[in-house]
């Protein structure tokens, strides 16, 4: 599979020269499977840029199908969805997957951001594409030759969904928006990430800032490194950067931990492509 990053920033989109290198768009990761099927993880503002690229595929002609996996419904992970052009092209089939949220159901929450007070779309029923919203159950998903499993992670009062996508015996794990209890991953998270070729993990904070922000629902770079090591993961992707961190800060974090971590640390960057 081919993994491309379109949004790597946490919380709120941050335009400006200070974010040009790593990017200011909120989370969106694109996966193209071996059979050229498109899977998207999260629909932050990064999906707007991806959207334009996908218009060159059958999705541009209303003949495409795509699966979107949502980690959770905080706005930085769904705010790009109403601007994802393929939803306005009749004939497309858009599958959206996510866990059942505690306070409501997935469809109601996604519809909530499109209601009259907030959007001229007035609800997902006005999308022209066929939309299929599925809440995950315990069964693994099978998406065009890949197997997708999930696990629930603590994220300040709610749960976020971590995904493990396997193709040809290789695994990618996406674990964003998580604050493990006490800042250390539990056994279930370690098991879930076990021996994945690539782990994309929430590294919202430096260790110092995390110490001041416990309870915010996000992780420090050190938590992520510790988890990667315990799970025998060799490649760790830094992800969901704090909106307060400029490119200089992110580069500094990378430099500081790359050598000492003993694993391959990859700072997520808009446009970065990884092959698995």
């Amino acid at each position, binding site marked *: 599979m081919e993994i491309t990053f379109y949004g790597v*920033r946490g*919380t*709120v*989109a*941050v*335009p*400006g*020269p200070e*974010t*040009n290198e790593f*990017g*200011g*768009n909120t989370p969106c990761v694109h996966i193209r499977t071996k059979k050229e099927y498109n899977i998207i993880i999260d629909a932050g*503002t990064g999906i*707007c*840029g991806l959207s334009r690229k996908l218009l060159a595929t059958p999705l541009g002609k209303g003949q495409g199908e795509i699966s979107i996996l949502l980690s959770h*419904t*905080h*706005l930085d992970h769904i*705010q*790009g969805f109403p*601007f994802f052009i393929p939803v306005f092209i009749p004939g497309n089939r858009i599958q959206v997957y996510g866990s059942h*949220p*505690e*306070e*409501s159901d997935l469809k109601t*929450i996604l519809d*909530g*951001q499109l*209601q*009259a*007070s*907030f*959007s*001229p*779309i*007035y*609800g997902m029923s*006005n999308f022209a594409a066929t939309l299929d919203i599925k809440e995950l159950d315990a069964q693994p998903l099978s998406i065009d030759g890949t197997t997708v499993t999930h696990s629930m992670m603590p*994220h*300040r*009062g*709610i749960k976020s969904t971590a995904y493990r996508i396997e193709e040809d015996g290789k695994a990618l794990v996406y674990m964003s928006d998580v604050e493990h209890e006490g800042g250390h991953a539990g056994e279930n998270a370690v098991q879930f990430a076990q021996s994945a070729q690539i782990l994309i993990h929430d590294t919202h904070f430096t260790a110092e800032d995390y110490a001041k922000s416990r309870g*915010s*629902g996000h992780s420090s770079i050190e938590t992520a490194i510790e988890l990667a090591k315990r799970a025998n993961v060799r490649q760790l992707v830094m992800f969901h950067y704090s*909106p307060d961190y400029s490119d200089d800060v992110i580069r500094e974090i990378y430099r500081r931990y790359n050598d000492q971590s003993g694993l391959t640390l990859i700072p997520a960057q*808009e446009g970065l492509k990884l092959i698995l």
Partner: protein
Amino acid sequence: MKVKFWGVRGSYPVPGISTNKYGGNTPCIEVRLNNGQLIIIDAGTGIRMLGQELINNGFGSGKGRADILISHTHWDHIQGFPFFKPLFIDGNQFTIHARPSNHLHLKEIISYQNKDCYLPIPFNAVKANLDFVEIDADQKFRIGDAVVKTFKLNHPNIAIGYRIEADGKVFAVVSDTAPFENVLIGEQFIPKPPSTLTEEEERTLGELQFKLNSVLEDVDFMVYDTFFQVNEYVKNPHWGHSTPEHGIDLCLESGVPRMALFHHAPGNTDEILDGMQNYYRLKSKETHVEVIVAREGEEIIL
């Protein structure tokens, strides 16, 4: 009076190298009176940066005070609220003026994004004192030393324009709006350009246009929704946005000498906006309406 742009982009924030010059943040304008009084228009992502500056100027110690005028509550005009740091400091005082919609109270609308399912920041984390003032079109009220008039704009579910008079100058924000060619202010989804007008619609549009022209007479500087270029508007007149030409016509009709193009489409890169700046600068030699392209960080002194 000073006007400073903190966010000039429409629809959604657009980070990246192609928006470095004009800016990628969604709408937020600071209006500063000569006596220091602060009025903020709209709370798109641009308000986050304004908040950081205010923290160093009285708002950091809970002594800040401002009025926030919201044109309408579509996301791009309110999404910055949760990231406006002065809200989280005890003692600061904000009065939020907006037109409620969808039968919801204004506070419900503004705090909707703070629900657990949408944000990890609960609304009760706000420490500043907030007053919510529900307004409508065709009102006139005083905020400190400023006199504010409201007017109705042609945008899905209605947007409110503001005319602010203070320090002997008049400033107006006319965004988001389409020109008054079709009625777009209903409460339903508009899937395609409306067809021919009924007599009643023509009357409604005429009345809106007349009121807008009247309220803009004697305005010194107008900020106008120019999301579209002419060829784009023709395809999407029902989206509720305008072109620079519509804005220039309005200036000529109402005698406004100076306008800023505002609410730039996400796809309008710095290169495109530079091109527009050059084109409309030349054009102003014929029209005598000075046209600037609103740019994040730019200050206009009236």
